């Protein structure tokens, strides 16, 4: 048998009831989706109304204006004295003095000692 164009194009058609069934199913699903979307929208609107109502009640509450503004941040307190560590500055000072000596101009120390004899003088020179 040769499946020619005629026989291929003449294949049986879907039953008429199928078209009606598909249409009904599609429209039913579309309406269902619309209902779900509308319900979600209404829920969103209701939630927004509740939020607005609560916010309005808070603002309009008596004495609401006298309420002190909320403290958002505090300045840090002074550090405790006990926690301060005193470091001995000796090391540093010593280092500084040594450095000062290093940079100071050299001076000769001369000690002149006189004896009983005026012609004898002892001179002690320290470098």
């Amino acid at each position: 048998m040769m499946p020619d164009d005629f026989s291929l194009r003449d294949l049986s058609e879907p039953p008429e009831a199928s078209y009606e069934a598909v249409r009904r199913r599609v429209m039913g699903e579309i309406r269902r989706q619309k209902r779900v979307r509308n319900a979600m929208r209404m829920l969103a609107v209701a939630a927004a109304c509740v939020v607005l109502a609560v916010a309005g009640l808070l603002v309009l509450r008596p004495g609401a204006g006298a309420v002190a503004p909320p403290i958002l941040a505090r300045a840090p307190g002074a550090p405790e004295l006990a926690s301060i560590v005193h470091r001995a500055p000796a090391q540093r000072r010593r280092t500084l003095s040594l450095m000062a000596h290093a940079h100071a101009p050299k001076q000769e120390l001369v000690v002149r000692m006189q004896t009983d004899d005026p012609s004898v003088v002892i001179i002690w020179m320290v470098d």
Partner: protein
Amino acid sequence: MEASADALARARRGDEAAFEELMRMHERQVLRTALRLLGRVEDAEDVAQEVFLRLYRNLCGFQALAEIRPWLYRVTFNVCCDLGRRRFVAELPDEVAVEQTQESDVSLEQRRGLLAEALAYLPEKERAAVVLREIEGLDTAQVAEILGSTPVTVRTQVSTGRARLREIVARLERRKG
């Protein structure tokens, strides 16, 4: 035609009656193609439902009515492939091929039934090419666009598909005869 274009515009605005009108315009194309590709009316109905729901969701993407027809073919083919992979894996009847020249005494009606059955045994793309080209009467370029392939490939698929159909029908005839 003007009324049809108006139906598209109204359907895009959310008019359900207009969308139903659009469905009536294209339901034969969708349901028939799905039936040819899947072989079962129940599956074809499922596919048609999914295709039209997708059309409804994508209505805003269409500027002209002419854009809908090729789009529907493409989506029908894709949905059929998805459904076909899940539900329907046809296997060739395990029988020795008979000679093609053998005369058959089955009636025309029976032959149509055999052809419809044989279509289900073709590989997915070959079946789609044969259905769209030979049954729906689309030209090769259109079929290539729908299947996402080239005209040369489509021509090959149609040719191979027809040869394979001939062989499958012969096997089925032999088995049932």
